[in-house]
């Protein structure tokens, strides 16, 4: 039990971030009109592609002779980049469609 509290205490700053960001996320999108549901989902999908930063860090930490880590890390970078690039391009294409016939809602 003590270890759990220790861990929380050591990471208090990050836990603050976590809690505040959760509330912020709820607040930020609470008034979205229904036509934007799918583009918003797609945009959010691209944003969580930030996980690729973690993949890059993993690769930078891996020692050059650890082939297992290098291979898996390479895969992680590829799929993470797919998430980022694909996500933003798809969102942009969806929103492009809206542009032609402006709607108000």
């Amino acid at each position, binding site marked *: 039990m003590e*270890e759990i509290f220790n861990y929380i205490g050591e990471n208090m700053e990050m836990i603050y971030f976590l809690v505040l960001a959760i509330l912020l996320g709820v607040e930020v*999108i609470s008034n979205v009109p229904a036509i934007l549901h799918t583009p918003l*989902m797609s945009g959010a999908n691209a944003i969580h592609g930030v996980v690729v930063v973690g993949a890059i860090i993993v690769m930078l930490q891996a020692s050059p002779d650890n082939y297992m880590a290098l291979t898996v890390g390479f895969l992680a970078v590829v799929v993470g980049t797919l998430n980022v690039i694909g996500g933003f391009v798809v969102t942009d294409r969806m*929103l492009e469609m809206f542009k032609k016939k402006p709607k108000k809602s």
Partner: protein
Amino acid sequence: MSLNILEISYLIASLTFIIGLKMLSHPDSARKGNLIAAVGMLIAILATLTLYQDFDQAKMINYGLIFGGLVVGTVIGTIMAKRVQMTSMPQMVSFFNGMGGACAALIAIIEYQHHQHTTVTGFDGELLVMLLGLLIGSVSFSGSLIAYGKLEGKIKDRVLPMNQAINMIMLGAIIVLIAYQLFVGSTPFQFYILLALALVYGVLFVMPIGGADMPVVISLLNSFTGMAAAFGGFLYDNKAMLTGGILVGSAGTILTILMCNAMNRSLTNVLLGAFGGASAG
């Protein structure tokens, strides 16, 4: 000096994610919001590449592989996203979401290799974060691919007998396995069993849900991947990953509920084929 610049870059990236998400929820500014978030993402990636320092030796091979990975991902991602038909957009989103989940799971796998050399007794927060990243990332990966297959018409709706009961049992097994690793001890064998269970669970979770409800499920899996990314941020004390991930995690959950409301259904109702409510987060 360079470490501070790195932290500032992450702050800017986090801000662009928040602003981007905000602008994405208004029709007039949506496209600009997407662009702003993309710029922030670029800043975060470039800053990590150039400023992150945690090495004692020259690692040309690592940099080569990173750039190779970035180029391969960019080329394939752009081609896929540009070629896809407008009507097939939702499954494309699902596919890319699955890739993000896979990325989070792979990170957890590598980190576990580093981790197991250190002997820790009792509760280990780092291990918990790793296991959750692995679990949620894998569920999101396999679930998203099933959702993709269903929307493409490659996978038919099929309900196993007792699917709901099987899912419950699997979820229970996963929780027990995580608790066991945390409090008793973790070996690679148990770690990979957890990975396998999570992958199968993702399949069984999405399988019974009807094709018309897929957008809701994709949105839910989207928020799962966000959480997995946030656990990665926890692992590295990386605030861009934490904010980006958890923002999507919470916004995605609310969006899922809004989408259900737009269809005049409840989330439980949509997931009924699977089980009554998402407890993985």
